[in-house]
Structures are given as C-alpha cells and as structure tokens.
C-alpha cells in the first residue's frame, strides 16, 4: 500500500499515512488538533488548512469562499491524500488546548474551590452532608508481632489479623491474583523492615483489598485525584487523603472536541477505525498530563498516588475506560454499564501507583451519568426534607428533582450556546470574555466587564444572558428576540437578519467587532427553552409546581457568574424568590472529591443512583408544547413570571 509523508506547518510535525487518508486524520495522528465540531463530515467548515505542496483529492464544499480557495484552502476532512504533502495550519483552525491560566481556573472554579476551607465547611447556604473521613485508598501503619512457637499464624494471615484489628471491621481476605506480587515479597519485606510496615487498603462498598505493602511508616504520604470529565472541560484535583487538603487544581479542554463537539458525534466517531482508541487516548493523555504536573508541583512521588475518582456523563466514562459506547445512541439506549466496579487505574491507562484504583461515580442511564449523581451527592439533595431541584446548565442540561424520599432526573439537550459555541462571537468563560453587561437605555451604549478585566475577545454564556436581558429591558428586542429598533451604526442589517454592535473594533482585544445577531439570540432562546421546559415538565410530571421547590441548586461551568435576576428575565430559570437559588458551581467535581475522601460518600452515591428514576422527555407528550411555549422571552405564559409584569 502506498504511504505518503504529511508535514504540518508551522509546527513542522510529520506523519506517514496510507493513501486516501484524510488530512484531518493525518493531523490527529501527528498530534495536531484541528477544530472540527461535526467530527469530519464536511459540515462545520472549521478544519480549514492551506495545501502548500502535493496532491489531494478533495470533495466539493460550500464552506470555502472564493478568496479562501484562491489561497489554497481546503477542508482537512474532505481531502484524501494522494502524494507527499505539505500543509499549513492557520491559527484559527487549531483547537485551543492551552492549559487554562490560573486566573481562568480561579474564575471557573470560583465559589466552591477558591478556599479549600469552604469546601470542608460546605457549600454556602446548604447543609453539605458530612461523611466520615475514610478515603477509598487508606494507608495503615502496622507493627506486627513477630511469630513465635505459640503464635505460628502465617505471614499473610498475620497481616490480615492486624489489619482487621486496625480497621476495626472484618476484612474480606480477597487478595486477588493481581496482588500476588505483594504476597511474593511479603515474608522478606516483613523481616527486613522488622515487622513495621505500611499497607495500602483499597476500599469498596463491600470489600477491602490490599493494594500495596511498603516497609516502615509511609502513612503520611497518601494522595488521590478526583476528576470531572466534562464533554468540553476536564477538571482535576490533587487531594491529600490523610489531611483532606486540596493540594492543587487543574483544568483543561477535552481534546475529544477534535472528534466532534457533542457526545453523539463522538459516539459515531468511536465506530471508525481506531476511533475508540483515539477518543480514549485524548482524555487519558490529558488526565495523565494533569496528574504529572500536579504531582511534580507538589513534590510527590507518583507511587504515593493510590486512588482516582471520576465523575462524568455516561459516554465520557465509557470513552475513558475504552468501552464501546455505540449502544448509548441506539434504541433503547442502553449503556454497557451504569455502575462500573472499582478497577485498577493502570488498566484504564492512568499512570499512578501501579496498584492504584479507579472509582467511577455511578450513573443512572445513557443520558444521566455519574456527574449528576456526584452533583446530587455534593449538594446533599438526597438528604433534604424539602423538595429541591438541581439544574446543571451544560450542553446536555441535566435536571434532578426530589428530596430524601425520591429523585427523578431528565436530560435536556440545550446545545452549546451557553458555553459560547454556535454563536457568532461566543467563547468559553475564559479571560477576555464579556461576562456582565449593561445597556444604557438612552443611547444603547454597552457597558461591560470581562473575565480577568482584559480587553474583550468575545461573549460567554453569562454575558449573553446579561446582554439579552438588557436588550429586553431597554426595548431593543421584542419578546421573540427580534431587534425592533433602528439605530444607525449600532443596529445593522445583514443577509441573515439584524445584528447589534456590542463592542467596536477599536475597543476589542483582536481589533474585531463583537456583535450579537438575531440568530445568536435565537440560539440562546432555544437553549434556555430546552432547560426551562425540561424543568417544567419534570416538576409537573411529579405533580408539583415550581413554587413547591424550596431550593434550586444551579450547577455548571458558568454558574458562578450567573446573574439570577437576569436569568429569570430571559426565562431560563423559574420566577421564584432569588434566595431559593443556590450556586454550586462544578458540583460534579465536588461530588467526586467527597467520594475520594469517604467510602460512605461513595456508598451514598450508589444509593443515589439506585433511587433515581429517569424521565425520558422525548416520549413525554407535553414536552414539545412546553418547549414551544418557552421559545419566548420570558415565556408565552406571562403569568408564570409575575415578578416581570410591568
């Protein structure tokens, strides 16, 4: 078979591929990640590259304008390589994988993680359930009595006996073959260390397992990681399992975005040749990188990291474990597993102590994953007497309703608009994103503030909420989201409708105008309608009204900057007293950390997953009607938003 060399500039990275491979696949093999939200179907037009040398067979596309064609631009996914080629990758085609700056990180995790003490004390405004400190990987320092003629119990049984005494609970002696290595070295180790050893115990709900045996007292060196594996963002924390202290937090974009921006595209991609492998590596490599960096920054030996907990949606967990996710998207939508038993972290490709374990927050169904279980755990909804709701505003908005008696969830596909995707000047909540805005009702000038206080680059989800709310308030748009005022210079007509100038060229970071178009408003309107209507249907399905909700927990990447009043004005959230809303930020990561630090929390999460029932909205007859009614600012039924009248 013909093989050709592909060289990518400016990175100067080369890779050898077989004939007819697409430039997009070649780029991924070369470790160059191109934007490609459609996953290589030639639809999104983001993977633009310039062919400098060589021959390709390219399929026709309407995604390139004549000027771009003249420059030799092609869509990487539509070009099959026919010779050695050289390709230029423009900056705008690259996925931005730079690690989040500490500033962005702080903002992203603000509210719950800025002060580790806050976490221990609980999320403000709610009684966070307190779990006994009993990390999933525990280190016990033991001084064993040496054997003598009266006490001739074998070395291993001696060890078990001592552990049982130390733990003060029965130990299941299930030392599996994987731990044979531990048994082989046991006798020598015990005698060399004069019977003073440290054992690492892995805890499961119903079993304990010896993970490692080390000479002398190393019990102060026991660390773990918790991760939130989001469709777009990965967040990880290094935790001292002995002191419960958070030693460091990192976040990075999920590199799987290169294979499609939503879970469905990625599930489809997993069926392609090596697709699953590539998706798996994209996430695992990033996690290993975070682990490596955090361990290095804290001068910790990788061998002292004994445990990882992960919370993520069902698809993300499948891909992390390299389990084929195909059946998640096929009727009747059954995943391989919702409850995945504790596995060796090494088996999943995660580089910590070779005996270290990986625990996964249990999921509920194909579209309600461990992230929501972890979220409920962290806000303690399952312990509440009163009726509560958890709304996780993300690409797949998840909503849970209940209290200690019952829990019901549903998933609302809101789309990525609130995450700054699919909107003209949208961006993620990062430095330079407009996050707050105010429009002067006299001259319609916009006052705004950006994340990090720098010059504006684009608009993030909370910025859109603020802007649209202000546009409604000042009468710039009507209740259907159409611009209704003529403002020379500020409101302009384009082929696809009107647009409003938010920031002129000279005031922006990239010397590019920042605008909000009627299409953008339409996208946000659909996203907010999906979330509101899902919540409304769920509440009514259970025979309640919104007024019955005593607490509403708002989770999600941008939740910390969310202006409640404005979110209500656009009809994203129900019109209730502001003090019923509680921000919980990244509740999924908080839940994963609770599980890492306490077997009780982990057991609780299993209980939560078991007690949760799933309401499939697509078969709920009233959903479509509710959705259409919610496609209005704030809602077609104004009686539902009494505080906004007049």
């Amino acid at each position, binding site marked *: 078979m013909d093989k050709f060399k592909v060289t990518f500039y400016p990175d100067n990275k080369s890779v050898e591929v077989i004939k007819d491979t697409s430039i997009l696949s070649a780029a991924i093999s070369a470790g160059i990640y191109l934007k490609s939200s459609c996953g290589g179907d030639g639809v999104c037009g983001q993977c633009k590259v310039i062919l400098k040398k060589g021959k390709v067979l390219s399929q026709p596309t309407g995604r390139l304008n004549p000027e771009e064609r003249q420059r030799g631009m092609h869509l990487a996914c539509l070009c099959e390589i026919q010779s050695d080629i050289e390709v230029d990758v423009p900056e705008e085609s690259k996925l931005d994988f730079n690690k989040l700056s500490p500033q962005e990180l702080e903002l992203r995790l603000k509210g719950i993680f800025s002060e580790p003490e806050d976490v221990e004390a609980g999320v403000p405004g709610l009684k966070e359930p307190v779990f006994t400190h009993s990390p999933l990987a525990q280190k016990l320092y033991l001084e064993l009595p040496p054997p003598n003629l009266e006490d001739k119990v074998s070395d291993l049984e001696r060890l078990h006996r001592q552990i049982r005494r130390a733990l003060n609970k029965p130990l299941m002696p299930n030392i599996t073959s994987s731990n044979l290595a531990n048994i082989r070295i046991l006798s020598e180790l015990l005698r060399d260390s004069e019977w003073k050893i440290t054992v690492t115990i892995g805890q499961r709900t119903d079993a304990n397992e010896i993970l490692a045996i080390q000479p002398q007292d190393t019990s102060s060196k026991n660390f773990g990681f918790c991760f939130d594996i989001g469709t777009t963002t990965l967040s990880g924390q290094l935790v001292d399992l002995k002191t419960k202290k958070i030693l460091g937090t990192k976040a990075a974009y999920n590199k799987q975005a290169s294979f499609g921006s939503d879970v469905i595209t990625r599930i489809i991609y997993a069926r392609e040749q090596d697709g699953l492998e590539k998706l798996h590596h994209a996430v695992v490599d990033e996690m290993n990188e975070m682990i490596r960096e955090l361990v290095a920054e804290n001068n910790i030996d990788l061998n002292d990291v004994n445990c990882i907990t992960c919370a993520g949606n069902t698809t993300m967990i499948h891909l992390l474990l390299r389990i084929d996710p195909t059946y998640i998207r096929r009727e009747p939508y059954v995943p391989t597993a919702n409850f995945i038993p504790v596995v060796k972290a090494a088996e999943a490709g995660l580089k910590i102590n070779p005996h270290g374990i990986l625990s996964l927050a249990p999921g509920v169904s194909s579209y309600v994953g461990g992230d929501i279980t972890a979220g409920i755990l962290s806000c303690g909804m399952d312990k509440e007497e009163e009726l509560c709701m958890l709304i996780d505003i993300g690409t797949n908005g998840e909503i849970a309703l209940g209290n200690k008696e019952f829990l019901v969830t549903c998933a609302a596909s809101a789309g990525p608009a609130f995450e700054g995707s699919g909107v003209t000047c949208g961006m993620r909540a990062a430095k330079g994103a407009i996050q707050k805005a105010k429009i002067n009702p006299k001259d319609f000038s916009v006052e705004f503030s950006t994340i990090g206080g720098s010059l504006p680059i684009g608009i993030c989800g909370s910025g859109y909420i603020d802007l649209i709310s202000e546009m409604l308030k000042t009468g710039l748009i*009507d*209740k*259907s989201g*159409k611009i*209704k005022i003529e403002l020379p210079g500020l409101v302009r007509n384009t082929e696809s409708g009107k647009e409003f100038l938010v920031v002129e060229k000279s005031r922006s970071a990239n010397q590019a105008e920042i605008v909000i178009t009627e299409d953008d408003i339409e996208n946000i309107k659909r996203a907010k309608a999906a979330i509101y209507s899902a919540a409304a249907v769920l509440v009514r399905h259970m025979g309640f009204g919104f007024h019955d909700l005593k607490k509403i927990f708002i989770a999600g990447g941008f939740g910390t900057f969310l202006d409640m009043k404005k979110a209500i004005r656009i009809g994203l959230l129900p019109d209730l007293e502001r003090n019923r809303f509680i921000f919980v930020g990244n509740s999924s990561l908080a839940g994963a950390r609770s599980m890492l630090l306490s077997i009780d929390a982990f057991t609780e999460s299993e209980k939560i997953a078991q007690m949760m029932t799933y309401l499939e909205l697509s078969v709920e007859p009233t959903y479509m*009607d509710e959705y*259409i*009614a919610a*496609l*209005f600012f704030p809602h*077609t*039924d*104004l009686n539902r938003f009494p505080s906004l009248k007049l």
Partner: protein
Amino acid sequence: MAEEVLIEKWPGTVSSVTIGALKNEGGSRSAIIKVGGQKTLPFLFKEGQIPNKPVVAFEIWDISPDDWHPELIKEYGTSLKDPVVWAEKCVNDHKAELLCIKLQGAHPDFGNKTAKEEAGLISQLLKKVSVPLIIYGCGDNEKDNEILPACSEAAKGEKCLIGDAVQENYKTLTAAVLADGHNIIAESPIDINIAKQLNILISDMGLSLERIVINPTIGALGYGLEYAYSIMERARLAALSGDKTLACPFICFIGQEAWRAKETKVEESQQGIIWEQVTAIALLEAGADILVMRHPKAIEKINSHIQELFGS
C-alpha cells in the same frame, strides 16, 4: 326524573371587534360588522351570552383568479376580470355583508403590482361598495410590507381588518394599522403558543388586544381539519378561562383551503361547494367568527345554517 344539565360559567370573554366605520364615525360604510364578544363556547346559548353571529366574508382578488375551479369561474363570470365589478356583484347579487380583498396580484410571481396600484384599488372599492372590508396581503413578507401600509393609509378611518401579521413580520403592518385606526389579523401556523406570542408582540407595540383577530390557519376536511379544530378549541377554552392574550375572534380562510382538496378538483363537480360547507360548519363549532369563503352557494347554505343555529 329529568336530568339536570350542568351549566358552566366562564370568567373570560372573547373580545369584540368592530369592522367598518359609519359616516358619523369617520368612515363611509353603510353598516358595520361586530364579531366576538362571546362568554361561552360556540352555540351554548344557555351557558353565556353570544352577542354576535359568525359572519361570512366573500373572498375576491385583485387579479383574475385563473387557476380557480371552473365551478367558481362559471359562477362569477366576467366580473372576475375587474375586482370592483366582482365586489359589486357579491354585494348586489349575493347580499355580501363583508368582503375580503386578497391582493394576490402584488405577489412577485403573480403580476408584482405596486403599492400605488393596490392602494388605488382599495380607494376604488371603498368608493363603489359600502360594506366593510378585509384587506389581505399576497403572502410575500417583503411585498406585503410595501403594499399593506399603502392600502392601510388609503383606507384610513374605515376600520378595516388587515392581514396577515406573522411572527417574523408583524412590525410594519402593526405600525400601519395603529396609525390608520384599523384592526389586524395575526396568523400563526396551527400553534396555540405562537398565536399567543404574536398577540403579545403586537399588543406590546401598542395595538390593543381588542383590535386583533386570530388567523389560526386551518386545514380543510380531510386535510388537517381536526388539528385546526383542536387548536381553536384550546385557544377558546384558554380565552374563556381568562387568558386575555388569546381572547380574540378567529378568522378562517375556508374557501382557499377547501378548494385545494383533491376531491374538489374534478371537472364539473359540486364537491368543492360541499367541501367548503362541511369545513365551514365544523369550524363554526370550533369557534370561527369570520369565515372567508368563495362559492356563493356554499355561502348561502352557511348563512342559513348560522340563522338556524341562532333560532331565527
């Protein structure tokens, strides 16, 4: 023992819309039409007041409707060539109380008549006939935004009913109707939520809800009649339950839909007349207040049907 009939009392009232202005009201009509005002579901006279009868409007065009069924063309004859003659024929020969002039000829694909031409036609019509007028655009948003304001101005003070305003295009027409003292037709695609949204948008511009007539969009018998029926029923129930934003009378374009049915296409067939009647009767029961129809025979039947229902 006689069974006791449960009487339902509704808190809401459908708003009452007046079409046409008399000479002393700033117009030049010889009579005016009132629709709406019901306090109950259609024809449940025992449960609440029904002050106004449903009314039929004759549909006429500004151009000769060459693709109409031979039955219709035969009925109107050469009058079809001149909208004013056609209008007079409806009033004089068929006792039309209300006319609906559809400005089809303004459509870019059907003659592309100018705003000036159409406004001129409206002035002519108002001069030659004295019944109230419904002015109906060609359906092309851009073109309607040119012709309808001009027609509205030409008919200033005559309290016409002008349409359609749709969700994507309601501002220009609303502004014109507001300025010239007319009523507006708000069209929604068989969707109660959009009907309500559009009414809110229009009333947000300052046109009171009492000047809006809902065009719920309908389907003829066999072509989605039941969807239209249930949407109208739901909207009316909401109105009677107190939802003011849905408490507007309905206008139903019966003729246009009925004559589209495949069954009416057969040459020398009376099916179309029957189709128009059946569709109209069904939608009267759903709450239709204004029926825009085509065939005089069908209209005659429906008028007598309405008389019978009202017991006179």
